[in-house]
Every structure is written in structure tokens, then in C-alpha cells.
């Protein structure tokens, strides 16, 4: 076969490698929640690797209450038109038709997200059925591996979205990291019990025990509000950062967005993080988790 020959083999769309590979390209980057084309452009100008199109940021979903659903297709189209970077959008947990619609709109990644009101209390979306890749939230290794078994091509720690409080993101990143580390210390006969305890497929448990990492890219999310928050999550092993309400609910979104992008790249450079943290204006006010009732916690949605 020479450079000018043709092949009868058709290009293969939506393989696991191109879905997971897309997440590899986002690594070291920041994905920002946006609700308008203008916000999307601000995010792109600040150096976001992708934007998440949604109707309301999590802080507003909390405030407004009611059922939170997939965005209006017009709004998703407007954001796709506004930027050249990848556009993600959220579907409700288990709502496979919202996911079909988002795929038809041409979004680049779907977030099956606990921030929206779940549409199915038993089943998540069968993500293998789609050519568009999915990211899903997880609070521990078992949950991450169940989502990967369903076809998720990227995992994010859940944190507690819309609170501006990083404590739950920290808890979930540390939990994932500890679960993975522990698996690598087990011998092969112990992995069967580990799979049972994690309620996860044995083959995936065995793979993680061998490699010491998830088989897909791991980002962090839920409560990241400052450059230092982003850098801490990176030092805890996140491969990139989702920032939701933290940017556009702050005093100076453009400056804060740029600062979080820089802190995510140079996460081990305290001098630089100090420099970019100066005069960012007001951060999102935030919510203390001990005042947040159990039924208002998004992280417990999904299983």
C-alpha cells in the first residue's frame, strides 16, 4: 500500500479509542460551564479546552429548584456556532433520548450528569450505543468502573456542584486515589473479592490493579472556585478540571477563567499560582456543606 493508494476499508466512527482519545486531548485543561454564546467566547479566549453548554449553572439550579433538564437545542446550537473548541452538553442520568438529541445536534461530549434531575432511578444510559463519547461522575472507584462498563469514555470526580466549596471534590479525588492504590497491593486471588466489594466488573478491577490508573481519563469537578482549588485537585491526581459556577458566578469571570487555566497547567508552581491569584475580585460566595441537607446533595444521585 503506497501513499496514494485507496482502501476498501471504511473509516470506523466512534471507536472506544477515538472516544477515550478525545478525553486524552483535553488533559491538563479546564472545561468551563457556559449558558450563553458570549460566555462561551469568554471561556475560549481564556484558554478553556472545551465548554459545557447548559441552561443554568449548578448554583442557579440549586437556587431556582424544580426539575433541571437538557438545554434548549437553540441554545446548544448558538454555543456550537460561537466557538471553535469542543462543546459538551449535559443529559439527565438515564435519559437516553436527551442523549440522542445532543448527539444529533453535534455536541462533542455528553455529560450524563447528576447536576440535572435524574430521569431513571435504576439505569444509567447504555453509552456503547452512541458514537459521541460520554463523561460521567463518580465518588469512588466502584462507581467509576460501573460507568466505564456502561461505556463512559471519561470520568470526573463528582464533588458537590454549585457550592463553590471544594471539600467534596477533595473527598472524592482522595477516595478514588486510595481505592486505586489499594487495588495495586492485592494479589490475584484477592481481586475477585475486591470486584465484589466495589460492585464492579472483575475485568476492569483486574486492569486497574495492573496499571494503577483508570482505563479512561480522570477529571475533577464540583466546587472548584479558585486557581489554588484547581491546582490542589491536579496535585491530588486529577488530569484536568471542570469549573461550573465558579467562573461566571464570580466578580471578574474573564480574569478568573484565565487564572484557573494557568494554575491547572502550572499546578506545581506555587509562585505562579500566587501571581495569578492576585486581585481576581470576588469568588462565588459558596455554601458550607454542613448546612446542605442530604436531599439537596447532587453527589448522591447515580449509583
Amino acid at each position, binding site marked *: 500500500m503506497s501513499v496514494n493508494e485507496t482502501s476498501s476499508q*471504511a473509516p470506523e466512527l466512534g471507536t472506544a479509542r477515538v472516544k477515550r*482519545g478525545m478525553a486524552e*486531548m483535553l488533559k491538563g485543561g479546564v472545561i468551563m460551564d457556559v449558558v450563553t454564546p458570549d460566555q462561551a467566547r469568554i471561556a475560549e479566549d481564556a484558554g478553556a479546552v472545551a465548554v459545557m453548554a447548559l441552561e443554568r449553572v449548578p448554583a442557579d439550579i440549586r437556587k431556582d429548584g424544580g426539575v433541571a433538564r437538557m438545554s434548549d437545542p437553540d441554545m446548544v446550537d448558538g454555543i456550537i456556532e460561537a466557538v471553535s473548541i469542543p462543546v459538551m452538553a449535559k443529559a439527565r442520568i438515564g435519559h437516553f433520548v436527551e442523549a440522542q438529541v445532543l448527539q444529533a445536534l453535534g455536541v462533542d461530549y455528553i455529560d450524563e450528569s447528576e447536576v440535572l434531575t435524574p430521569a431513571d432511578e435504576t439505569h444509567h444510559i447504555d453509552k456503547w450505543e452512541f458514537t459521541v463519547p460520554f463523561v460521567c461522575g463518580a465518588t469512588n472507584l466502584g462507581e467509576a468502573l460501573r460507568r466505564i462498563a456502561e461505556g463512559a469514555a471519561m470520568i470526573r470526580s463528582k464533588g458537590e456542584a454549585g457550592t463553590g466549596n471544594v471539600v467534596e471534590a477533595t473527598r472524592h479525588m482522595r477516595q478514588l486515589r486510595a481505592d486505586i492504590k489499594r487495588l495495586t497491593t492485592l494479589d490475584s486471588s484477592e481481586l475477585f473479592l475486591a470486584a465484589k466489594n466495589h460492585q464492579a466488573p472483575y475485568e476492569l478491577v483486574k486492569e486497574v490493579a495492573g496499571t494503577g490508573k483508570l482505563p479512561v481519563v480522570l477529571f475533577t469537578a464540583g466546587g472548584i472556585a479558585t486557581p489554588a482549588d484547581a491546582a490542589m485537585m491536579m496535585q491530588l491526581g486529577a488530569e484536568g478540571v471542570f469549573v461550573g459556577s465558579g467562573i461566571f458566578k464570580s466578580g471578574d469571570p474573564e480574569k478568573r477563567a484565565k487564572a484557573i487555566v494557568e494554575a491547572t497547567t502550572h499546578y506545581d508552581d506555587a509562585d505562579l499560582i500566587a501571581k495569578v491569584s492576585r486581585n481576581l475580585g470576588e469568588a462565588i460566595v459558596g455554601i458550607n456543606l454542613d448546612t446542605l441537607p442530604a436531599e439537596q446533595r447532587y453527589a448522591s444521585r447515580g449509583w
Partner: protein
Amino acid sequence: MATTADPVIGVLALQGDFREHVAALKAIGARSALVRRPDDLQSVDALIVPGGESTTMWKLATTAEMFEPVRKRIADGMPAFGTCAGMIMLADRITDAAAGQQTFGGLPITVRRNAFGRQTESFEEPIAFDGIGELAGVFIRAPWVESVEDGVEVLARVTSGPAIGRIVAVRQGNLLATSFHPELTADRRIHEFFVAMVHDRGSA
């Protein structure tokens, strides 16, 4: 095994899949180093610009005061290899760029960003690479080469589907670029090809 006499291949580590490139270089016994700051650049003999988001890399390179130093090293003949976003960064001209988007340049080619479409159009396909043979092409929101100036070698084209015939790998002198991601496969032949280019630098 690598010795201290071997060239150090830098991998631009601002954003993207730079760890996969480092792993590929390790697997073939080449010396590698992450390049994140201007100081890091001084100790490398060549540079890989990884896959990722080209607009983000451009902005981060600018704020880290890396943009001009990298551009100058490439213009002065440092060997460089770019995959996907890295190909965009090495191209002299881009179409469908973000507003004001700049590149390191060096390759007299025009590259179209996101040329194959959105992520749902991302694909895998066997590619015939001139001088190497058939290998797996992994294309992710990939660019293609719209046109090349004289002196640029075309090393691979798309072999099937709607984009048949499009140029997806080029070389000129010390610069190599692919639209696809050899670093996401276990096949190390393109990295070996680039390391051989680095060893032969100056004579090209």
C-alpha cells in the same frame, strides 16, 4: 539504552496528551524531557508538540513566555514533530482558526482545523505512511493539510471515506507533522522515524 550522548527529545507539556508521547519515547529507548518553561527549552535538542487543543496551547505558550522562544528554535532548525493540534502549531497558515490564533510555524503548509467535522465524525482508519508502511490512523477532531508549498513531502493521505485523498502527514527538512495520533497506539514506528530524523539533523 539511551546514553548521555543521545539527543534529548522535549515534549511540550502545556496541555494535551504529552504523557503518551513521553511513554512512546521511553518505549523506544529515547531520552525525553517535559518542556513547560523557557528554561526547559534550552536543554532539549528537539521538540514534540502533542495533541490537545491548539487555541489553549497557543494561549498558554504566550502567557508562559514560551511562544517566541519555541518559534525561534524551530526557525533556527530544531527538529520538531507535531500530532493533530501539534500539526496546527507547526503550520505556517491555518484556516478556520480562532480569532487571532497564532502558530509556531515552520512548515510551509496550510492546515484546516477540525477539518473532518465534530467528535461524532472522529474515526480510525489504516494509513499508508511513506517509508514506514501501513499503520493505524486515529483521527480525533483532526485537522488536514489543505495545501503544501514546493519542497514539502506528503507522507500519507486518507485512503477511504468522504475525505479520501486528503493529506494527513507531511515532512520538510527537520519538521514532521501528522493529523492523527501515533502516540495513542502501541505502534512506535513514527516516533522511531522522528528520532532518526533528530539523529540526522543538519544533514537534512
